[in-house]
């Protein structure tokens, strides 16, 4: 259930892949507060958020559900998702474009209310560079 603090938050909506049928019908929210926090980090993070996050939501290489580790799901069980993908670019701190980081994937974490609350680069599985390291132990189910 949303806390009073959460219910005051405003969100924008982005399209994402619905893992059940592969259509672009899933709607993911991002809070204005989160966007403002990203802006304060500088141009590299602004471009990462503005360009990479929507791309991962629309063209993921995998979607996982049931984030198994405590730090990922806060012991709240099923419903929390992780969209994974390999971006076409990375962004330096000044916002200039670079190549994607070798051996890394980009993850977008979504809570059970379909709010994307965190996104970041992580090391990829050495045997499958399109998936995150330890994905077998880390998630309860692979949806896509």
């Amino acid at each position, binding site marked *: 259930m949303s*806390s009073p*603090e*959460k219910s005051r*938050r405003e969100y*924008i*909506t*982005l*399209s994402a892949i619905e893992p059940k049928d592969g259509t672009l019908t899933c*709607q993911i929210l991002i*809070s204005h*507060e*989160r*966007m*403002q*926090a*990203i*802006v*304060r*980090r*500088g*141009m*590299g*993070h*602004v*471009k*990462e*958020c*503005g*360009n990479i996050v*929507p*791309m991962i939501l*629309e063209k993921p290489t995998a979607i996982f559900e049931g984030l198994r*580790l*405590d*730090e*990922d799901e*806060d*012991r709240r069980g099923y419903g929390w998702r992780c969209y994974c993908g390999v971006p076409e670019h*990375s*962004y*330096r*701190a000044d*916002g200039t474009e670079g190549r994607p*980081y070798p051996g*890394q994937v980009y993850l977008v*974490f979504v*809570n059970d*209310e379909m*709010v994307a*609350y*965190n996104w*970041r*680069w*992580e*090391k990829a599985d050495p045997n499958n560079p399109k998936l995150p390291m330890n994905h077998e132990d880390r998630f309860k189910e692979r949806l896509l």
Partner: protein
Amino acid sequence: MTVMSNSEFAKRMMLLARPAQQFEPTATYDPDGDCIEFLAKPDPFYAERVDDLVTVYYSQETGEVIGSLIKGVRGFQDQISKTMPGFQIEIKAGRVRLVHLFRSRLWTSPAKANDLTTLVYEKLISVAEESQVETDLCLV
């Protein structure tokens, strides 16, 4: 609910951005993820899980520790108030220095002095101390 296109979203982010803005270290509590995100430098980063509480951020440019994500903040706060009741003294008007959160975790952890986990926490303590950042705590 209106869905924003990817290009509109990218444009919105660019409009919010202020190129000349000077970076300041921040630690922000996000109720959607029940997490505190700390960033001491504007570098792009990659993340690695340390334990069930902390994921550490390493600079893609230098490999230095430059931030972290603390997850499950409500549960952690509840745990601290039971195991370290005196910690409440450090919370001023709902805010606490981030370094105290890392220290309290380290002090209640079974990790040994030379464990990699301990070394990462010590580095995070040092970065948080240098940054002097404070964060809001959620209301349990």
